[in-house]
């Protein structure tokens, strides 16, 4: 298998499939057992400095922000993050010095809301390094290969570009078509955290709306923390097993956290908190502003519940629910 072209990017989170099987054999329990814990316990137990971490959801949608804020509170360091359309999560983690390396599909931006002053500053000053580039499909396929337990997935994108040059891919000649084909390496994040609508105490999870990459990410992550709007009985799960997107044997910890994705959106539940995002985007223009934000929303509170209170509590959440139901108008305080 002659490699005709090889990306210079760092190969992050790849393991030999046999080595990963060995990990799965000894570390992923197939036993139905109560996995409930607090975010504080989950982050303390599962995330260590230097880990390669990945968020579920997409952009500002269904991200497990309660875990992100706990990582910040516990001041984890030297984390590598999957920049798989990672926006607010990545921005505050990089901006606050927890994440210092990123493999980028989409990062350092808040989509339509503009670029991320804080994390861009870190990259442009060399405090955070981009160790590899890829694309959204590229990341998706890293996870898909991981889930399948194979070393790589063939693909027909990235080739011919600097994105490939800075990626961890290898280009070979496909023996079936005789054409070039890109081999995207599997990814097995050390820890992933996925926010879901509901699950039972064992971690059998239901998600409403689009799944984005969470089906695959849940199955390839070495450790998986599920955070959930609500814990429901296993009986309900078993009544409609076709709704289970992530079964319990992929799950290591279950954290119940109402509004756990704030300020991100949750399908059918609550809208983006544009005021909060705007506050961050404004404050994060300076290092002092970042400190001010952290002092208030991260270190100034004990847990995510207190943070929600600080953001406006039930009154704010009621507004965000109304917004999600399109009963009140969109506000865009980050607009210039």
């Amino acid at each position, binding site marked *: 298998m002659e490699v005709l072209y090889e990306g210079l990017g760092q190969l992050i989170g790849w393991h030999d499939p046999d080595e990963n099987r060995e990990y799965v054999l000894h570390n992923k329990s197939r036993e139905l057992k109560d996995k409930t814990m607090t975010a504080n316990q989950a982050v303390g137990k599962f995330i260590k400095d230097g880990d390669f971490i990945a968020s579920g*959801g*997409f*952009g*500002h*949608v*269904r991200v497990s922000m309660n875990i992100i804020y706990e990582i910040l509170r516990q001041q984890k360091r030297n984390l590598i993050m999957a920049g798989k*359309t990672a926006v607010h999560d990545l921005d505050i983690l990089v901006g606050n010095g927890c994440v210092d390396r990123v493999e*980028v*599909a*989409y*990062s*350092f*931006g808040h*989509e*339509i*809301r503009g670029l991320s002053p804080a994390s*861009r500053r870190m*990259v*442009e000053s*060399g405090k955070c*390094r*981009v160790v590899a*580039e890829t*694309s*959204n*499909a*590229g990341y*998706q*396929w890293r996870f*898909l290969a991981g889930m399948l337990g194979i070393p790589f997935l063939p*693909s*027909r*994108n990235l*080739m*011919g*570009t*600097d*994105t490939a040059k*800075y990626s961890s891919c290898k*280009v070979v000649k496909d023996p079936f078509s005789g*054409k*070039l*084909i*890109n081999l995207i390496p599997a990814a097995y994040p050390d820890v992933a955290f996925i926010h879901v609508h509901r699950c039972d105490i064992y971690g059998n999870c239901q998600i409403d*709306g*689009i*799944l*984005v*990459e*969470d*089906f*695959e990410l849940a199955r390839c992550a070495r450790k998986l923390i599920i955070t959930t709007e609500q814990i429901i009985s296993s009986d309900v799960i078993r009544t409609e097993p076709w709704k289970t997107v992530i079964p319990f044997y992929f799950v290591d910890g279950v954290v119940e956290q109402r509004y756990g994705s704030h300020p991100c*959106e949750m*399908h*059918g539940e609550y809208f*983006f908190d544009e005021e909060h995002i705007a506050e961050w985007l404004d404050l994060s223009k300076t290092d002092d502003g970042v400190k001010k934000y952290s002092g208030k929303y991260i270190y100034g509170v004990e847990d995510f519940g207190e943070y929600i209170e600080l953001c406006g509590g039930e009154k704010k959440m009621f507004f965000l629910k109304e917004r999600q139901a*399109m009963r009140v108008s*969109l506000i*865009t305080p980050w*607009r210039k």
Partner: protein
Amino acid sequence: MSYIPAIECNVREFIAFTGAGMLENGKSVFVGTGLPMIAGILAQKTHAPNLLIIFEAGGVGPILPELPISVGQSLTCHRGVAASSMHDVMASCQAGFIDYGFLGGAQIDMYGNINTTCIGDHNLPKVRLPGSGGANDIASFANKTIIIAASQSKRTFVNKLDFLTSPGYLDGPGAREKAGLPLSTGPYRVITQLATYGFDENTKQMKLISLHPGVSLEEVQDNCSFDMLIPEKYTISPEPSEKDLHILRKEIDPTGIMIGK
């Protein structure tokens, strides 16, 4: 604004209208947030009611009661035909089910290659941009890619990209095929505030198709670092009707979040 439309409208409205006009009824389009989404919806509300809109995060064929502000937002599957996954839609994209894709970029070169990664050196960039996102995927897989560049200038239409994020025709004819990218793909149109461009069939270089109303050839050339091909025949870009603008302003983006007031 450099052009003088018959009916008063802003650049973003003009671009959305122009993009919409390129989309065919009964075809599929991969859209990102902002102008591409508006172009797609405008096409649906005018000449292409049967245009299939797909979002990279999994939303397929929604009926949109308001404008989504993110490609992953719940609205992207609101009354859709499917609420699926990136696995599903990116696979379909690679397998050839996506006819049109939209891209934007900080820099673009004569072959329609795009930079959305960084300005300056990759390792310590002067400006770090978000990276590919789904752009490299769209540029690799969509049958026809439409590039929107709302601020054409010598700084954005460059001879050499600081970083080639998403493939246009790379370094010319045959280069995409040689690199291993799917056949019969590549940039189709470029829409800026000044004009609409295509690509020469033989050289794969960017070529003027139509000037927006009131724009001169000099303006196009003055706002481009590379040699823009100017064919003998080019036209003036069609303008939106009052009805088009009414749909844009009243139905699609009444708060003006994307197209401005």
